């Protein structure tokens, strides 16, 4: 071994890390000559081309021209690049549609794949949540309706009430309205939603049997007679079985979801900014 070589190699022996970096760099650059840096290969198999061409030909109802064959493959390549770029830039995580689809895929398997609730389970669930199925108080009442500023609105309300009490056929009186002259089993919530809270409260405060009014609602003026008051009641399970089954299944799915999340939470740490 020559003195020159011994001198030069001594430098590398004293700094092996530097030698490693230089050698690695040479290998790295050499590889780059044969494999383009950071370039991915999109390989379009022959059967993929055939399938794409067939699908397009079927859609057009004829064979493709050469230009159309090229265009079909180009469309596929474009789509593949879009997908890869989207993943590279993590766009797929931000797409609301993709998130919804993934959440659907992670939802517990459909209830059809699990046994339905046994009678005992359903009964226990119903007893534990009975109030949820309580039928609220409701009224059956008769009413005569007048639109705001209706020409038919009686000038003398007291006189009109006397007419109604005298058993006039009230069904033909007043203006047309979507709520029938004899409204059956209307809950307070229903009346609030349709005609306003003050009207609902006023009607629910009436005693059955006598005409009263005028009461103003969001739609107009009403004269009302409560015919029957139906108290709130707790139905039997059989009467609300379908609702109970749906709620029971919904809670089971939620419990499965929570169970899955409990297992998964350990994999994630949450940082708030």
């Amino acid at each position, binding site marked *: 071994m020559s003195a020159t070589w011994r001198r030069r190699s001594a430098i590398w*022996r*004293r700094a*092996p*890390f530097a030698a*490693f970096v230089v050698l690695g760099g040479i290998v790295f650059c050499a590889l780059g000559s044969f494999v*383009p840096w*950071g*370039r*991915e*290969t*999109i*390989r*379009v*198999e*022959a059967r993929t*081309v*055939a399938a794409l061409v*067939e699908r397009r*030909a*079927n*859609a*057009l*109802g*004829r*064979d493709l021209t050469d230009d159309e064959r090229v265009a079909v*493959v180009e469309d596929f*390549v*474009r*789509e593949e*690049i*879009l*997908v890869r*770029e*989207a*993943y590279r*830039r993590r*766009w*797929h*995580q*931000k*797409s609301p*549609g*993709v*998130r919804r*689809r*993934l*959440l659907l*895929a*992670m939802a517990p398997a459909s209830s059809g794949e699990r046994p339905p609730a046994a009678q005992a389970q359903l009964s226990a669930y119903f007893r534990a949540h009975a109030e949820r199925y309580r039928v609220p108080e409701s009224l059956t009442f008769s009413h005569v309706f007048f639109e705001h500023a209706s020409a038919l609105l009686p000038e003398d309300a007291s006189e009109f009430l006397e007419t109604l009490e005298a058993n006039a056929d009230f069904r033909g009186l007043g203006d047309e309205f979507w709520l029938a002259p004899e409204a059956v089993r209307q809950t307070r919530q229903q009346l609030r939603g349709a005609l306003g809270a003050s009207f609902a409260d006023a009607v629910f405060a009436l005693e059955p049997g006598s005409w009263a009014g005028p009461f103003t609602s969001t739609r107009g003026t009403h004269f009302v007679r409560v015919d029957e008051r139906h108290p709130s009641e707790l139905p039997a399970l059989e009467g609300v079985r379908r609702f109970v089954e749906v709620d029971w299944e919904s809670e089971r799915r939620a419990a499965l979801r929570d169970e*899955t*999340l409990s297992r*998964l*939470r350990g*994999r*994630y*740490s*949450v*940082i*708030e*900014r």
Partner: protein
Amino acid sequence: MKTAGLTLKLALLAAVCYLAYHWLGPEDQQVIEVTRARIDAVVSRQESLLGRPLRDAERAAAERAYVDEEILVREALRRGVDRADSQVRRLVVAHAWRELLRMSGYEPPVPTRAELRAYYDAHARTYVVPERLDLRHVGYAVGNAPADPDAVVTALENGADFQNLGDAGAEMIEVTRSRIALSLGLELANEVFSLPRGTWHGPLISSEGTHFFRVERRRPARQASFSDVERDVERDFLEDAETAAVDGALRGIRRRYVVDIAHD
């Protein structure tokens, strides 16, 4: 020499430590970043639905729900659920398309009537109303082909009720070649469209089974006038403009890819 030996030992030690950590160490934790802006957006959406501000407990629940949702999405991605779902792929493509248009500052053009007319002239073939047939069809599913197809044709020619023969019998009105091709293949579609009118023909075989057809009426193809298809022309014009914009945005990106198309 001594130094080289020490370097090698250190490298080996590092490798052992790395492998040990990789196999025995804690599973990598992913970080979910919850920004104030993101939570505010989630809360705002809920408040719009409810028509009132959220209470503190509801706000906390909304934040928890967002984190839970994020965990499930990431877990789905970790399991590769997205890769196996063609619908997700379509959604990803659509999202990427919109992002590239946005990044390129794309503004859709407002074509003049003359430009649309020129587009129509250049793509006139696209606006041909295809030949259509009114057909009667009797189909036998795969595995249930009639033992004597000629007898089926004879029965049909003698007035047998085609809607009660086979596994499916139907009258089909204004059927295009592509409609048949999409379900039964282009080859069979071409066969059907070459049938003479007025008599039953079969058996014609597809991947779906065995078929018998009678052409009742033939409506020839015709060139749709520009005024008839002006809206379609405008739609196609704008689609082409979008595609050109996306291709422009992809020009630099394409250099990252090598496309290898296999040929037969």
